């Protein structure tokens, strides 16, 4: 995904929930939303971690001013 944001490792994006963050991310760097979202939901093969914790709430997950968000491959286990 680094290609989409010109090689930046960290991005600062505004929003109070994940939906807003992704929308704003896409405004700054086109293509992010397509990468992350399908049918209005986070793609099933992607997990979202907020402040180190995987969230089950998807787009409606609230975030703080200092929240760290990571998009990771979704994995379950055996």
């Amino acid at each position, binding site marked *: *995904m*680094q*290609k*989409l944001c010109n090689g930046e*490792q960290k991005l600062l994006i505004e929003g109070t929930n994940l939906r807003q963050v992704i929308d704003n991310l896409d405004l700054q760097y086109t293509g992010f939303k397509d*990468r992350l979202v399908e049918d209005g939901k986070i793609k099933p093969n992607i997990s979202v*971690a907020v*402040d*180190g*914790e*995987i*969230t*089950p709430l998807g787009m409606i997950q609230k975030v703080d001013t200092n929240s*760290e968000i*990571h998009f*990771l*491959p979704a*994995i*379950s*286990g*055996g």
Partner: protein
Amino acid sequence: MTTADYERNMILSNVDYKVLGTRPVRHDGADKVTGRAIYGADFDASGLLHGKILRSPHAHAKIVSIDTSKAEALEGVKAVATAADFPQTDDKKWVRDNILASDKVLYAGHAIAGVAAANPHVAEEALALIEVKYEVLKPVLTTQEAMADGAPILHEGLTTQELGEDSGVVSNTADHFQHVKGDVTKGFEDADVIVEREYNTAMVHQGYIEPHNGTALWNADGRLHVWCSTQGSFVVRDSLAELLDIPVSRIRVTPTEIGGGFGGKIPIYVEPVAAILSKKTGTPVKIVMSRKDTFEGSGPTPGSNIKIKLGAKSDGTITAAHAWMAMEAGGYPGSPVGAAAQCVFAAYDIENGLIDGYDVVVNKPKTAPYRAPGAPNAAFGMEQAMNELAIKLNMDPIDLRLKNVAVEGTRRIDGPTFRRIGAKEVLEAMKDHPHYQTAKAAGHGRGVSIGFWFNIGFDSACNIAVNSDGSINLTEGSTDIGGSRTSIAMHAAEVLGIPVEDVRPSVVDTDTIGFTAVTGGSRTTFATGWAAYEAAQDVKKQSIERAGSIWDVDPDSLQMEDGVISSKTDSELKMTFKELASQMSDTGGGITGRASVNPKGVGGSFAGNMVDVSVDDETGKVTIERFTCVQDVGKAIHPSYVEGQMQGGSVQGIGWALNEEYFMNDQGNMANSSLLDYRMPTSLDLPMIDTVIVEVANPGHPFGVRGVGEANIVPPTPAIANAVSDATGNIMTQLPLTPGAVLDSGK
């Protein structure tokens, strides 16, 4: 080969509970030790037919035609099913094709057709009468072969996803991704010492003793009922709905008892075929895989090609780490290389890291999860590289790990920072353990390692009905592979302050309980236990309210502790939960508690191994002399079953290290698809497996639970490789460490 005296289980915990931490006999115990428990193959139904499946003898071939007419004509055959019987929806072709191949077979053992007959032997005879014309193609059997220029292509429509974008290039590499932290080039430049090595691991199977099975009844009312041994009844239901293009409301899945899964019984194989055959015959159809079919037609875990490069300062600080990992997805994309990438460097705080992951299709069975999928492969490389680094730096191997250990706040190379974790505590417990403190015997080799699995949360539901005698019926949907129904019952008993014997847990079907995710991912005690906790809190709240109305006082003035409801202010007002329960009907009716959870707060688990081996100079045979597993489990709800998970994962790791592999001939057929030649450990191959439970409470869970099932299979292969290396002086870059491989390693 007797065990040295050792100190069992140092349980480092600082909260005492009444029920949690005790070792009650499991509720399903009597059934399991008398043979009364019904597993999938034991299931019977009126009018039952037996189904058998025809499988491809070729690893890679186009299917030119399938003629089932002679099979259908055989006396006693009631129905035949092929891929053509599935609804042909566009986006599910690969999923359908793995159940019954349509235009191509991608591995030897790939299912092609199913036959149902009253007599299973007749069904088997019918298979031989099905005529399939193949155009045999050259197979690719390793990631190296598959990734080479000019390699035979498995899927003409498969283009490589290169760092998140479709490259448009047709190849056998489905996906290449990267995780980047800092600047590895600079990190390696700053290093005083570099270790760089390439490793290869072979495909292995989960090895559950119970083969796959399923009985399907497509009833006259259009409802499909399936009974099967599965790690996830709701997964079966949802998968069937997708494959058969019918709504989930028309499907009911009843889980039978399950004889092992380890991840391999998350995907479905025989159920859709049984369903189609049942639809055609109008009677139940049962399909049970043979052992050969289980090896060749279910989902083993990938072989892999891994390159690790580490750079460190002379004081042991790691300055850079690069992992390049290619994993076999099998016939269709979807290896666990993503998970491997999240685990490979997880134990360490590394400033500069780069992880390259490649998901590569090969002509072997489509891989399925196997206990911490991907992580053992990654650890085989990384933990051996750490061992080499320790030797180069002349540092104790545990000290080197402690120097770099990840702690709360450490940023992982795949991005997130850790919350409270127990890696340091595990390493310290290893260092202090009598095993490590005792010098190894003459001629023995010793190896250590540490591994990680992040564990998952996901959905669980639980209902509790209170009986008039004060016992409770607890229903939940997590199929019980290892005693979990009792651990879950213990959560409820703890909350209500009642004995765990007064809880009657049942694992119920998809019509009877709310959506519950798989029994896997080390989530069951964590998430379904949490659902039981919440359902019990609901019962507790209602019980207090009921007592309030019985006594005509404000419920806020009451409390419930240790199974007794009392007033905070009036010492006269007291009754036991039993007494309340006996009055339920007369005071407003029954009490039922319920909960559906999808919890956050998942805590990852670290597991470490110390192993002593002896190596026979002449034969290369490796004997495990002593084995200790140390694991951070957060809170051991039922210590015996926690120890059991640690021991079981350790022994699967030992088999993975020493003997197990899919031995393929040049044509891509598995030459050792029997339990004789696919050599899993027997009781005679092993010493006692010593365990140490470390409890660094997971702040995210009400009782501090971390998933325990998986992390323990991650450290054994490198610990054993390190021990063999210590004994022989040679680095073991290839799994398994068979006697021949050990003898060859010096050359």
